[in-house]
């Protein structure tokens, strides 16, 4: 029953469990895949006690490690962003996709994929390898800031208006993406389909150098918003009465989400459900207070995405499933089960 007393998980135990989960996921991610790397190999490589196996070295350093790190960072950013927006909107169902960052990034990315050889040839020539991620990053942040501008009137941001503006902008960007899809040839169609399903398969160090700093900024600054976001759970006026500058909290949260998720989406494509499922689940264990919740989301989101990525690699090995698909397959039923359990208990 809901009316029973509630006991929270002790923070050290909870964090310890999440760290253990990450460690397990990391070992799994490093060792699983087409080229087997055993734990013993791993230990030898770390201690420098290496038989000169250049293939193993290459697989580890150039393929598995960047993929692991990108997975951890992306999962962390998506989950933390979900928690930030849920606090800001006071709605446990809010998701980074809600304020337009995903749809804007998708529109820009699909535009580059479809028009890269024709209408946007200048852009691809200018930016080279970065044409797609850069466009996605800019698209994501610009649409979010646009939604924010629309919701900003007379020095105040209306959170309800922001949500509605986000929905409208999502619809418009979705229509744009649809038009481009309609226009696309078979080749472009295939790559844009894969992009919208998300993937860590092409992770390289370069991606980390480019997107990593933005994501790290989000992860490092987000905890500073923990206290004011706690107050936001009781409503924006209450946060004001408690002495927080609500204008700066809103600005900060939206900017962090736009930058972090924009950067993540730019290099991985669209990955849903992390931002929704992870905060929801961890809130049951740690409570709704953001001081414990935000770091827990960073750990839990990273672990979840890395585990999902391992599954994506082994389910149809030697081929791979898009990770966005795996997340939806895992996350959807899981989320439903959670809702049903809460309903019937």
């Amino acid at each position: 029953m809901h009316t029973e007393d509630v006991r929270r998980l002790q923070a050290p135990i909870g964090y310890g469990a999440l760290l253990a989960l990450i460690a397990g996921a990391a070992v799994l991610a490093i060792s699983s895949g087409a080229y087997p790397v055993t734990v013993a190999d791993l230990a030898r490589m770390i201690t420098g006690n290496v038989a000169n196996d250049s293939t193993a070295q290459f697989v580890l350093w150039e393929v598995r490690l960047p993929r692991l790190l990108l997975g951890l960072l992306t999962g962390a950013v998506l989950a933390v962003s979900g928690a930030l927006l849920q606090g800001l909107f006071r709605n446990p169902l809010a998701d980074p996709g809600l304020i337009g960052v995903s749809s804007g990034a998708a529109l820009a990315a699909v535009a580059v994929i479809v028009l890269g050889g024709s209408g946007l040839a200048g852009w691809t020539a200018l930016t080279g390898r970065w044409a797609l991620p850069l466009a996605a990053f800019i698209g994501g942040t610009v649409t979010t800031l646009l939604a924010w501008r629309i919701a900003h009137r007379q020095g105040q941001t209306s959170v309800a208006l922001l949500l509605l503006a986000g929905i409208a902008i999502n619809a418009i960007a979705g229509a744009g993406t649809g038009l481009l899809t309609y226009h696309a040839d078979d080749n472009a169609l295939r790559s844009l389909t894969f992009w919208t399903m998300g993937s860590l398969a092409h992770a390289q160090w370069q991606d980390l150098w480019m997107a990593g700093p933005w994501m790290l900024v989000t992860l490092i600054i987000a905890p500073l918003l923990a206290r004011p976001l706690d107050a936001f759970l009781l409503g924006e006026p209450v946060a004001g009465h408690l002495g927080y500058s609500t204008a700066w909290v809103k600005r900060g949260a939206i900017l962090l989400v736009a930058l972090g998720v924009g950067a993540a989406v730019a290099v991985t494509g669209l990955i849903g459900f992390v931002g929704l499922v992870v905060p929801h689940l961890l809130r049951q264990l740690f409570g709704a207070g953001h001081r414990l919740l935000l770091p827990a989301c960073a750990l839990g989101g990273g672990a979840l995405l890395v585990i999902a990525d391992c599954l994506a690699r082994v389910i149809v090995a030697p081929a791979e499933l898009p990770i966005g698909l795996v997340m939806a397959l895992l996350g959807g039923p899981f989320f439903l089960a959670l809702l049903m359990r809460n309903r019937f208990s």
Partner: protein
Amino acid sequence: MHQKPLLNVNNLDLWLAKQQILDDISLSLTQGELVALLGPNGAGKSTLIRALAGEVRVPAQTVRFDGKDMNQWSRAALARHRAVMPQKVDLQFPMTVEEVVALGRPRENPTQRRRIIRALLARLDITHLETRLVPTLSGGEQQRVQLARVLAQVWDRPDPRLLLLDECTSALDPAHQQQVFQQLRQLASEGFGLLVAVHDLNLAAQYADRLVLMKAGKIFAEGPPASVLTEQHLREVYGLESRVELLPEGYPLVIPQRPRTGHPTDLGGQPLPWERLTGVEYRRIV
């Protein structure tokens, strides 16, 4: 006796969305005083509270708090000296009573905060709910939790201390209404100034030092309960027929009466149009 002026409102006009909500409001509140704000729905009570709470910006020099223009106060200082309870707070997240009350004191050290929370839960008779989830509590229990959270904000702080409470007992049963207002009285005697919007006229008469009766954005009457709660005033402000009796306890009791004219469609002795047509006389509701 505390006599220091705590809050001064001078000729406050307030327009929201091109509508005048507050019209030339002037009132003052001294330390240790409990003032009740009365008036029908839409009279401007909540807007006045929200303006004094900083949710709506007021013109410079119209509101002075502890002698200083309200707009000159820093956010952080105000949070230590002024606490506000909105009419409605709804929480969608699984937070316990203790966690919600703790929000009132985010920067306090943990042992001190525990002490404050325990004291307030005991005062408001919700100690037994401490580890329960707030969204699962009844409306009255949630209201007491919010009041505890509001009080935590200014508990054990130096004066001046101002409480703005917008219908803080509307969901409570009569026994708890009495209990909460006794607590508010106690706070007043400890030096708090309290401005409390209420709908229950008798509760206001019983506990407030002064009543402020509002109508259509203006202050209609102000003063001690017996001078504000008169049959004449209640008829003019609420359209309420009532009998007011001064109790031996020293405060007035309002006994609302059934409207004399009965149903609003009653046109008195005139035959109604359809009565003229059909010749059938309908019963008048009296």
